[in-house]
């Protein structure tokens, strides 16, 4: 099958299948999950058995059901944070190009400093002052990560803004808003969609890491990262409990990455560009 004149590789299908299955499971969680997420169904860290396909967690709840419900939190928060990241990053990037040199220079220099440090270190600083809650986490991550999107958005817009039709629009006397939304944005969409996928992977893993460190999503809400955190002790007793939520995180990320790799190959960008601090 071809989409937009490009042959779709098998890996992209596998990725799409993983993402689709994960989405169905978490969207229809109450019908898919075998037990309610808070119901205690067995002993502490029961190994996988016929009743509890993936065993039980640290207080005897069904691991599979917890995973399906926890996925809702993980995926939703990562999606919200990624969307916000893209809006801020693209907005600032386009603004830098569409306005004048001074705005561009100020924005670029500030962001250069932000790029000189890993996001994790900055995020930990913010959490030390503000504490941890879901809104604070989403806003912090989006702000920090938008600096990474800014660069791409600015570069893409730079290439478009020198084209004749943008110059014509400016000479026609259109404002900054028109130039950004009617001229640049529609033509910059393809690479930005691939970037959205990459950013989602990064954000998803980043939030999982924060939750794992006990600094992300706090109880009673549960996501996959905090499930790894809560079940980590099982390893010392020879159990496998934390491997299931950790594996779920890995699986969804692989799925999205496989799709992104295909999207990137259309635009001839090297694969693995997502590995970034």
């Amino acid at each position: 099958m071809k989409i937009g004149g490009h042959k779709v590789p098998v890996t992209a299908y596998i990725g799409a299948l993983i993402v689709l299955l994960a989405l169905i499971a978490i969207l229809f969680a109450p019908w898919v999950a075998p037990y309610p997420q808070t119901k205690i169904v067995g002993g502490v860290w029961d190994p996988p058995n016929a009743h509890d396909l993936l065993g039980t967690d640290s207080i005897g709840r069904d691991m599979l059901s917890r995973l399906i419900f926890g996925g809702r939190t993980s995926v939703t928060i990562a999606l919200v944070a990624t969307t916000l990241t893209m809006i801020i990053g693209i907005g600032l990037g386009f603004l830098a190009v569409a306005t004048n040199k001074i705005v561009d220079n100020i924005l670029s220099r500030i962001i250069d400093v932000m790029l000189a440090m890993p996001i994790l270190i900055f995020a930990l600083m913010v959490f030390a002052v503000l504490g941890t809650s879901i809104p604070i986490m989403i806003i912090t991550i989006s702000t920090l990560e938008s600096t990474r999107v800014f660069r791409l958005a600015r570069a893409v817009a730079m290439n478009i803004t020198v084209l004749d039709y943008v110059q014509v629009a400016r000479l026609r006397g259109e404002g900054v808003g028109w130039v950004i939304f009617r001229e640049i944005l529609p033509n910059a969409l393809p690479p930005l969609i691939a970037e959205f996928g990459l950013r989602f992977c990064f954000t998803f893993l980043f939030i999982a890491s924060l939750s794992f460190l006990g600094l992300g999503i706090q109880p009673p809400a549960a996501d996959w990262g905090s499930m790894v955190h809560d079940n980590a002790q099982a390893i010392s007793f020879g159990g496998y409990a934390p491997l299931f939520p950790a594996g779920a995180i890995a699986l969804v990320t692989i799925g999205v990455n496989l799709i992104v790799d295909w999207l990137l190959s259309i635009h001839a960008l090297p694969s693995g560009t997502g590995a970034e601090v």
Partner: protein
Amino acid sequence: MEILRFIATRAALGVLTLIAVSLLLYLGTQLLPGDVASALLGQSATPEALAVLRAKLGLNVPAWLRYLHWLWGVLHGNLGTSLTSGTPIASALMPRLANTLFLAGYAAIIAVPLAVGLGILAAIREGGILDRVSTMLSLATISFPEFFVSYILIVVFASQLGWLPSLATVYDGMGFWDRVDATTLPALTLVLVVVAHMLRMTRTSTLAVMSAPYVETAFLKGLSRSQVVLGHALPNALGPIIAVVALNLAYLVVGVVVVEVVFVYPGVGQLMVDAVSKRDLPTVQACGLVFAIAFIGLNTLADILAALANPRLRGRRGR
């Protein structure tokens, strides 16, 4: 002399970046709503209690003055006092810094030769088995969270095979080889996290040179592919490879935070995470500064080494 000027400029830029980041680390927290006093006392604190604590912590002094005071202290090895324990931060940080450097160094000693060697092999046999396996491996390692890799290694090597301890317990006066034994699993995790990316980039850098005209000439005069890669392509690909290695070592700096927590290893990363959950801002700032120095230092070093390896890079990279 050109090269000396480049090194001086690049080092100065590194110091400048570091100062900017330290400003952001220290003053950035001032822009946020709430301060250390309200963080310590919680939401139910009375205004009087807050005022007393602010005065005690010196929070009434203008922020820029406090920053200069802090920077002056840092330059003299005084990182301030921990809010929770009341002891100097430097005395808690230094042994942990040594531990973190030991772990990162251990990982780097394995990862760098492995990645560069395999990357060159993959470039020699482009499209071969190693090449394809490394593509899949790099997808896996950018998708797997560090703790997933850690737990798989623990289950296999500690729980099942019983070869290595699952917790990296170290103490003062521990023998060198005992220490190596205790930190092998966390070091292996870090190796797995960075090796694939480093390998891919080494391969890409080598292959990028392979399309140059002089490489074609080397082929045409009848050299074998490995002779061309090792003798002609590699020396010119060395600059980018060094840059990639340093970049990934800088990545170790971040990876180390999660890995230290998984293995309960007493390093700077764990100290920082602890301090964040206790909202001990001075300790968090000190740890942040340590990570900033390591990260920016490695990036600066990468640029300088890359320029030394390839004179053509001079001027082009030195913005």
